């Protein structure tokens, strides 16, 4: 599969101030997360990909289409769920979604059918004839998702999709996004400042800070690597022989404070083998946990870098 997003020296300026600073990246994931603190440039990047902002220099491509010269073709591929409210208060939900689907090119009958389907799919089937202005915040978020998917886009842009949702609503929204992602029919770009949202929905993440790319990692690979990463806590402080024995097994080890040892297990070695080695060396393991270099660690490391670059 070719890259979903290609950024080639993309620079966006507002009033002489650089908001996105010569970004270079090639993102191939099925679900790509854009992470960063407020003001990092996540929404600006999405808006640039949508053609709302003109690049000052460089280019950006979505599925190989240039967002500057092929803006119309690019927008034909996209379903967009904006961060803020986006509706016409006096229109009923299903009528609004139908109109938006028609503007995306669906014939009226198909647009109507898909508007109904989308509303049932996001759990708003019962309220689809109510004016959008009367919806609660959670319902508005779901209605935005229905609007974004009604015309069957190939790329779905979700800008802070869980904003303002209570925990059950958030869980439901995340489940919907995961379901859409797992169908494999479309690519998903999720912009959020919530690490958990990105971690639960995305397999690749681009971390932005101050308009720069602070980190770019493949969460799927990280997850695979982290499966073999353990942290042990032993009773004694001196674990020299134990460490040597682990190295002989093929493990990578690192000694921490207070009897803690970080271990990366090689393929084919199971955790039980560590207990056996510990017994042989007369070392008592008090705690063993699967430690992972979580997205939070990656994010914090990226944020610590002074200029926003790792």
């Amino acid at each position, binding site marked *: 599969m070719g890259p979903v997003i290609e950024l080639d020296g993309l620079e966006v300026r507002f009033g002489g101030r650089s908001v996105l600073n010569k970004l270079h990246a090639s993102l191939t994931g099925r679900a790509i997360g854009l992470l960063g603190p407020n003001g990092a440039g996540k929404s600006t990047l999405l808006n640039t990909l949508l053609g709302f902002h003109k690049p000052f220099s460089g280019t950006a491509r979505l599925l190989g289409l240039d967002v500057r010269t092929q803006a119309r073709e690019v927008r034909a591929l996209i379903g967009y769920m904006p961060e803020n409210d986006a509706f016409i208060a006096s229109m009923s939900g299903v009528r609004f979604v139908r109109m938006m689907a028609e503007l995306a090119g669906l*014939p009226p009958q198909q647009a109507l059918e898909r508007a109904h389907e989308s509303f049932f799919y996001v759990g708003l089937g019962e309220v689809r004839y109510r004016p959008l202005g009367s919806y609660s915040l959670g319902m508005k978020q779901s209605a935005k998702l229905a609007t974004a998917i009604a015309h069957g886009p190939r790329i779905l842009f979700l800008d802070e999709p869980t904003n303002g949702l209570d925990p059950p609503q958030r869980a439901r929204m995340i489940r919907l996004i995961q379901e859409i992602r797992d169908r494999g029919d479309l690519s998903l770009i999720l912009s959020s400042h919530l690490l958990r949202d990105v971690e639960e929905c995305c397999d690749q993440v681009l971390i932005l800070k101050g308009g720069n790319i602070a980190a770019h990692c493949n969460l799927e690979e990280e997850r695979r690597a982290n499966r073999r990463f353990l942290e042990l806590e032993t009773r004694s402080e001196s674990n020299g022989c134990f460490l040597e024995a682990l190295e002989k097994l093929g493990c990578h080890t690192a000694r921490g404070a207070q009897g803690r040892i970080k271990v990366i297990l090689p393929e084919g070695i199971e955790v039980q083998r560590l207990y056996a080695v510990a017994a042989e060396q007369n070392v008592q393991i008090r705690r063993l946990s699967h430690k992972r270099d979580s997205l939070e660690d990656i994010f914090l490391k990226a944020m610590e870098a002074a200029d926003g670059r790792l």
Partner: protein
Amino acid sequence: MAVYKKSYRPYQGELTPSWKRFLVIPRYAFEDLHRSRFLTIFYLASFLYPLIAALIIYIEHNVEALKLLNLGPAAQLIAIDAGFFMSFLGWQSMLALFLAAFIGPGQVSPDLANNALALYLARPFSRAEYVLGKASVLLVLMSLMTWVPGLLLFWLEGYLEGAGWAGEHARVASGLFFGSWAWIVVLTLLSLALSAWVKWRPAAGALVFGVFFVASAFGNAINTTQDTRWGHLLSMDTLIGSVWLQLFLGDYPASTGAAFFRLEAGRHLPFWSCWLMLAAWCMACLYMLARKIRGVQVVR
């Protein structure tokens, strides 16, 4: 399968031609307008004058009807000439102004009030198509009030007068057509621009009237205090009236004309300045629309 049992699936059917998509906007707008009883009645009432005018034309050419009404020769009743059609256009254009003030502000402001504009423009749909779609609502409605019945009346008069009349008065027909378009384009752009900048609909509607009456009063004040005629450039009715006079008659009449076009002798503006000022109004409105009709507003 029942619709509520269906899960997400991509769309693989046919798409409508992209050039037709702007027509989605007026279709939905007409449905909304049709729900308003007041607007429906107002709109139907706006056809009273054309009906009366048609009746007058018919009676003018029906000797039996004139005898029945105990009236003299046809020419003495009312003259069907450029003045007749200008009066028709003047009256209908005033109604068009009311229509623009009622429905114009409801076109763009609801999309801006809750950021729906981003969703329009996130689709394969340009800003120009959006404005064209919104403008077409007003253009169609105002056309049906002005030049369409005007040309029908012209055709009726030509038919009843017999061969030659239509050809001799072709200038009237072109005046009706182009004069109406000049007016409805200005009105459309003005009401859309104000709708884009003033999100509260009643205020935007009041502003449409304000531009006409307040600017006109301001122009008159300039004329009086500065002893000039150029203050009329701020008066929209004077501008359009002058344009109509040029289109219908070719020049200012020696005597004062209908109510819409009264100006003292020597206070007339050159025609080119009227056209230029109307074009400037249109450009200003387009600029205002261009500033507001964006997928996202950048706060610098």
